[in-house]
């Protein structure tokens, strides 16, 4: 049991745990009740978010704990075990709940009471909230609340959480809980079963008292041990759960089976028997077999042909809006950051600090912010589709397709979202219950062509792929190359998923068992809340890492920065500058010119001067880049990247773009002697890349195979700190992101190698290295 000091909550507060099936309205109720909300990260070791809210009623402080939705208290995963641990007070950093608030969907009472039947066995005072009374009424369900209350032995409060109807009576009821009244639980388990549980509990007590005399295993967990074959309790290493005890469990199950009470069916039977006893007469009336609006909608929306067509249309609209709405905002953000860094440069003296602020911090902040519009819009659509109930239909429609890959239909939307950005894609994998399926989806999501790859592709395709067109301009080589890059990512993802499902994360064929909720108009408030929560999770989860990495890369590109280098480079231009000044002076002395002629000549000179200045500062920037640690790293890895057709400068740019892929464009600009601020559409960057040569030779660095190998590399590599950070957050550790980075980088290297060498064979050209 956790003690007062260790917990997040002072001991005189009453802790209330919100328990219920997914989608019953726990979070809605949590938000309606709590005055102060605290988001306290994850529970240790799992990806379950810990949300605690505070409220004061009648001078009494309450702490609310929002638990993840669960259909039962039979833990099958570490995540579900958290719910059980919190409820039993076995989670050390949350106080044992004084009250369980069981949120029940009144329109699906029978199934929801299954969980209630488990909750009241925990021996904690319980309140039952009948939420969604409006939906129940819609279904013609009329309930005898007083009778229900009598049968359950706990207070029952009807509610409509999203409209806050009934909230007052719930508060009233809460302020009266004394923590004494225990629910009357008498689940009709057969006597044979009860005896086995008692026997097992004694065995466990004996076994554990040898190791830890004070440790006791709650009766509820003993029941679970007996009921859940290969369940989590077996593997969780509870005190006393030894090989010998597990053998006993097996024997007990065998005895029960011969007595006609096979595990686990005995549980369903007993609990639903209890449920029907409770509900007998309490449900006054109910429509049966009525064709609802949901049924009519499903008739079309889940149709193999029409449903699929509508689904495709919906996705097109979603993606269209992402690009249509996000791009202008992204441009604005980029301009804003650019303006800020210019202002910084203008007001601060030249030096490391200015460069750190302008090129390190601001650039880092920029690379976090620039994708935020896209990410938020995606979160918006995902929340919208989930809230209105369409998501489950999408999973149904896509299941056949995904099943071939070894995943379930639930992986489709996360993977599709990754075409815009892998971050929301990875975060939306939470709907996938199976741990292995979820992991595989997370691992392959970054292979989907996200929008950060577009600048790289755009630049290289425009510069090196000939603009050949066929079929009256409809089919172009450049377009085909772009399409090939998208396909490459997709096909690789499919193959990787297939491979992971057969090796690393081998498991049963992915299960698909899900509820199809009723369609409903989504509430804007809920959608907005989810967008904000997810957006914040992205910024806090990935922001710091991106910033740190951006600053590290900046430092590598800046230092050692010998101050005399700039003047040395400038000295090299002294002659040109002097010549220009000479001409200026000459112009002043000439007095046989008309005003217009003089003006034109002056303008001409000014232009030349500006051009020369630009050239000089680009040369200085390039000179500093060339002596930086980054360049040394580039030289160092040159032997490794030569087989890909790259020179050290490309190697440098690839290293520098570790925080975010699109950074490669800017870095290529600097390193091939161009001022900063180049973007993928700039004509001169393309020209510069086209004309870059290997040092000391006239041989061009870039040709078609080199450009293709660079594109293939960026299609397959994991150069995105945000993705890796979100992966760490969602998998709770650096192991999987590290693995992803390694496997994708290897894939990218091999892909680029094959592309270049194959390209050389096909197109000719001399291989280097």
């Amino acid at each position, binding site marked *: 049991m956790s003690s007062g000091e260790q917990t997040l909550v002072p001991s005189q507060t009453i802790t209330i745990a919100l328990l219920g099936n997914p989608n019953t309205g726990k979070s809605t109720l949590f938000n309606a009740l709590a005055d102060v909300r605290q988001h306290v990260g994850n529970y240790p070791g799992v990806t379950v978010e810990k949300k605690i809210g505070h409220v004061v009623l009648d001078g009494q402080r309450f702490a609310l704990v929002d638990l993840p939705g669960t*259909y*039962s208290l*039979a833990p*099958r995963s570490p995540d579900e075990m958290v719910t059980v641990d919190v409820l039993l007070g076995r989670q050390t950093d949350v106080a044992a709940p004084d009250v369980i608030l069981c949120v029940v969907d009144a*329109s*699906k009472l*029978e*199934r929801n009471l*299954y*969980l209630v039947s488990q909750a009241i066995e925990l021996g904690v005072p319980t309140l039952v909230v009948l939420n969604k009374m409006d939906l129940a009424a819609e*279904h013609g369900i009329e309930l005898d609340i007083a009778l229900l209350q009598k049968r359950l032995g706990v207070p029952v409060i009807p509610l409509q959480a999203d409209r806050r109807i009934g909230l007052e009576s719930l508060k009233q009821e809460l302020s009266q809980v004394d923590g004494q009244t225990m629910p009357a639980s008498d689940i009709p388990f057969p006597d044979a079963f009860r005896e086995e549980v008692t026997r097992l509990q004694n065995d466990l007590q004996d076994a554990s008292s040898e190791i830890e005399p004070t440790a006791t295993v709650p009766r509820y967990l003993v029941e679970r041990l007996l009921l*859940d*074959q*290969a*369940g989590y309790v077996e593997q969780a290493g509870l005190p006393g759960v030894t090989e010998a005890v597990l053998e006993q469990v097996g024997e007990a199950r065998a005895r029960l089976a011969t007595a006609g009470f096979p595990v*686990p*069916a005995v*549980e*369903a*039977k007993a609990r*639903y028997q209890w449920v029907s006893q409770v509900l007998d007469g309490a449900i006054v009336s*109910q429509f049966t077999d009525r064709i609802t609006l949901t049924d009519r909608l*499903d008739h079309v929306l*889940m149709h193999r042909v029409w449903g699929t067509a509508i689904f495709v249309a919906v996705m097109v609209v979603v993606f269209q809006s992402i690009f249509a709405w996000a791009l202008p905002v992204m441009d604005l953000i980029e301009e804003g950051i650019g303006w800020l860094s210019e202002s910084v440069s203008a007001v601060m003296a030249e030096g490391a600090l200015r460069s750190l602020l302008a090129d390190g911090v601001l650039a880092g902040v920029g690379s976090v912010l620039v994708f935020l519009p896209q990410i938020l819009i995606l979160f918006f659509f995902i929340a919208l589709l989930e809230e209105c109930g369409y998501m*489950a239909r999408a*999973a*149904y429609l896509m*299941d*056949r397709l995904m*099943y071939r890959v070894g995943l*379930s*239909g639930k992986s489709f939307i996360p993977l599709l979202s990754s075409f815009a950005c892998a971050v929301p894609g990875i975060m939306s994998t939470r709907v996938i219950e199976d741990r292995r399926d979820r992991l595989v989806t997370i691992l392959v999501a970054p292979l989907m062509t996200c929008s950060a790859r577009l600048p790289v592709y755009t630049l290289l395709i425009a510069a090196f792929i000939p603009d050949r067109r066929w079929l009256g301009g409809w089919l172009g080589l450049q377009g085909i190359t772009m399409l090939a890059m998208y396909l490459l990512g997709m096909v690789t993802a499919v193959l990787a998923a297939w491979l992971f499902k057969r090796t690393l994360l081998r498991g*049963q*064929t992915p*299960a*698909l*068992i*899900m*509820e*199809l909720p009723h369609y409903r108009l989504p509430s804007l408030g809920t959608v907005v809340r989810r967008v904000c929560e997810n957006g914040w999770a992205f910024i806090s989860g990935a922001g710091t890492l991106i910033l740190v990495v951006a600053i590290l890369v900046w430092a590598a590109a800046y230092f050692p920065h010998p101050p005399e280098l700039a003047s040395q480079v400038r000295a090299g231009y002294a002659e040109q500058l002097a010549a220009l000044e000479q001409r200026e002076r000459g112009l002043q002395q000439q007095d046989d010119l008309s005003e217009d002629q003089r003006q034109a000549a002056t303008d001409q000179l000014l232009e030349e001067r500006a051009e020369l200045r630009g050239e000089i500062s680009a040369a200085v920037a390039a000179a500093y880049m060339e002596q930086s640690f980054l360049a040394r790293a580039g030289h160092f890895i040159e032997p490794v990247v030569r087989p890909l057709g790259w020179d050290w400068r490309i190697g440098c740019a690839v290293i520098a773009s570790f925080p975010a892929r699109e950074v490669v464009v800017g870095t290529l600009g600097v390193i091939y002697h161009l001022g900063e601020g180049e973007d993928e559409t700039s004509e001169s960057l393309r020209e510069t890349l086209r004309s870059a040569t290997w040092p000391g030779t006239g041989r061009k660095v870039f040709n078609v195979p080199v450009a293709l190998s660079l594109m293939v590399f960026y299609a397959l590599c994991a150069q995105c700190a945000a993705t890796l950070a979100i992966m760490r957050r969602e998998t709770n550790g650096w192991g999987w992101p590290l693995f992803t980075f390694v496997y994708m980088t290897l894939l990218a290297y091999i892909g680029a190698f094959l592309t270049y060498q194959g390209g050389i064979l096909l197109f000719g050209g001399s291989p280097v290295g």
Partner: protein
Amino acid sequence: MFRLAAGQVGEIASISGDPSQVHRLHELGMYQGIKVTMVRSGTPCVIRLAGHKLCFRQNDGLEIQVNPLAGG
């Protein structure tokens, strides 16, 4: 196997296979003796039971026996 055609009503005779999938179906209200209506047959299939709809896929891990009931 699931032999019900769309629109047909049946009674669950038994559910067996991967314990966690069987368990999940129990929790979702699908257990021996309950009446279900097939809404969409095939894989995955959609059934209606006690006022709500479930979608699931029968595969190597899950086997469900039903007795078709007349009518429906």
